[in-house]
């Protein structure tokens, strides 16, 4: 049983970065203020189109993430809507002060696209695996943080980010990997809204990013086993859809959070903070458990760090037992 947002069956696997780029091209053709900026980062489809149609509106600043973020704030002062693109970890690590200061504090209309985020990238090594981005960025006032879960929601998030006036972070996974398409093309996206992807009142699974797809598989399998799991896709991590989360805690009495980054301060941290103050219920947090990453294949990494569908299902049974006990 699926809710209105989803396709009957998962669609083709598609790169979320490609979907973002398609949206960016669409936006640029409509709005001459859209400008796209890179820190020596892959430009993909947007690069080809911008170089041809809007060569003034594509900039590469070289390997200089701090400058990338700050100069985008300057472009915004000059009247443009810049989208910056770089590795998540380096935009975060080398651009944090810049995001805090020149983007968030001054409420600039800058859109920061953090690519290759999360633990499940594979074949890259610990130096590039960003798991702390949600924790670190969530603590900065004025930011809106979007965390799409498939190509369709990425495209819609990109368009919504451009329409929203103010600083937005868009968190995207590994740019070259393809992920199953979950959402119907015609679903109505809204910043700040958690999307109900599966109905249920026994337990709530609250997920964000690429693991939403795995969480959906888990919810469907549980349904076949007679357990009704409510699945919420936290497309916006900040501001949180507090009403949806508190309702899920109240109506199900047990919560599992799922993310591909650190539970320390991440989505799991955010939900623990919220429900412990509003409606405390048994909670398990699936995500990276205060660890750095490692090289390896994506599926191996999921297993190793406890991010697989089996781990989600196991956590669901744990909270169900805790709820009954």
């Amino acid at each position, binding site marked *: 049983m699926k809710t209105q947002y989803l396709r009957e069956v998962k669609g083709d696997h598609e790169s979320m970065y490609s979907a973002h780029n398609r949206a960016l091209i669409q936006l640029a053709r409509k709005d001459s203020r859209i400008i796209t900026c890179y820190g020596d980062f892959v430009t993909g489809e947007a690069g080809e189109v911008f170089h041809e149609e809007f060569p003034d509106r594509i900039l590469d600043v070289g390997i*200089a993430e701090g400058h990338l973020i700050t100069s985008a704030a300057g472009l915004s*002062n000059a009247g443009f809507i810049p989208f910056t693109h770089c590795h998540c970890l380096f935009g975060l690590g080398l651009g944090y002060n*810049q995001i805090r*200061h020149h983007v968030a504090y001054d409420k600039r209309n800058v859109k920061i696209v953090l690519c290759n985020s999360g633990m499940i990238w594979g074949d890259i090594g610990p130096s590039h695996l960003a798991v702390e981005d949600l924790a670190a960025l969530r603590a900065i006032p004025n930011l809106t943080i979007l965390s799409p879960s498939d190509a369709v929601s990425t495209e819609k998030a990109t368009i919504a980010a451009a329409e929203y006036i103010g600083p937005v972070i868009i968190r995207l996974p590994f740019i070259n990997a393809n992920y199953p398409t979950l959402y119907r093309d015609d679903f109505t996206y809204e910043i700040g809204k958690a999307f109900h992807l599966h109905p249920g009142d026994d337990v709530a699974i609250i997920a964000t990013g690429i693991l939403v797809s795995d969480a959906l598989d888990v919810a469907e399998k549980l349904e076949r086993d007679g357990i009704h799991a409510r699945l919420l896709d936290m497309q916006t991590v900040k501001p949180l859809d507090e009403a949806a989360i508190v309702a899920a805690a109240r109506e199900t009495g047990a919560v599992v959070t799922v993310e591909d980054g650190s539970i320390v301060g991440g989505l799991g941290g955010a939900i623990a903070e919220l429900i412990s103050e509003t409606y405390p219920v048994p909670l398990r947090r699936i995500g990276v458990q205060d660890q750095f990453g490692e090289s390896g294949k994506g599926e191996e990494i999921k297993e190793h760090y406890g991010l697989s569908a089996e781990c989600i299902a196991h956590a669901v049974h744990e909270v169900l037992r805790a709820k009954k006990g």
Partner: protein
Amino acid sequence: MAKEALVMELQTKATSLRREALLLMKEMGSGWLGGTFSSADVITALLFYRMKHDPKNPQWSERDRLIISKAHACELYYAALSEAGYFPKEDLKTYSHLGSRLQVHVDCRSPGAECSGGSLGLGLSFAVGVAMGAYVMPDKKNLSASSRIRLARFRVYCIVGDGECNEGQIWEAAENASHYRLDNLTAIIDHNKYQSTGSVEKKMSPLSLAEKFRAFGWETREIDGNNLEEVIDTLDWTGTIVGRPQAIISHTIKGKGIPWLEGTNCHFVRVTDEFIKEAFEALKI
């Protein structure tokens, strides 16, 4: 106006702004007197001579921009913005008070201020972004075309500290500015020879700031930044440069205007009534 009269007028303005800046410092009980007074003449010349701006319309899209990257030097800047007409003089008395638009360290809540500062090393990158924006012609090929007629909609000035040039991002910004041939961008390095806890030379020798900026592709001049005639001549020169950003290494005296502090590391100074009285004697108009 004859140049001599102009210089005299700007000198008087700079002195009067130094006096007002002292009153702001008194609101807080202390202030960044050294770096504020060293850069006072350049800020005065920019806002009251060189820049195209309209205090009645602070968000005018074609205005020239001034970015104070060494944002601790905010007291005289706020006084100058008020003098130019961005906000009433009474507001200056609220400086540093809870709820004031005039926050400690330049803050864009202040009308006329382009961006908030305080984290050193970032302002030049911001200025590069703004300067690029002046060149982006949404429906034409301008910035990235190899042969072109380049038209910037406005100019951007950025005041950077000499100690601030320790920060690596200054040089990320420097290479971007010359790579993109931002001739509408001028960086003024307030070379007052001291940073927070000691002399620039002893902390981290900058060697020659002029040679560094030249090596990064900037048209560079070294001037006496407390000599208003040289300052206005050099600001005029910046407008004649095509295809390259300009760096002005502005040799200044820390604490300029307060004789017993000049040339010492008077970075952060306690400002009492007695201090004001003596300082006002020195800053007679």
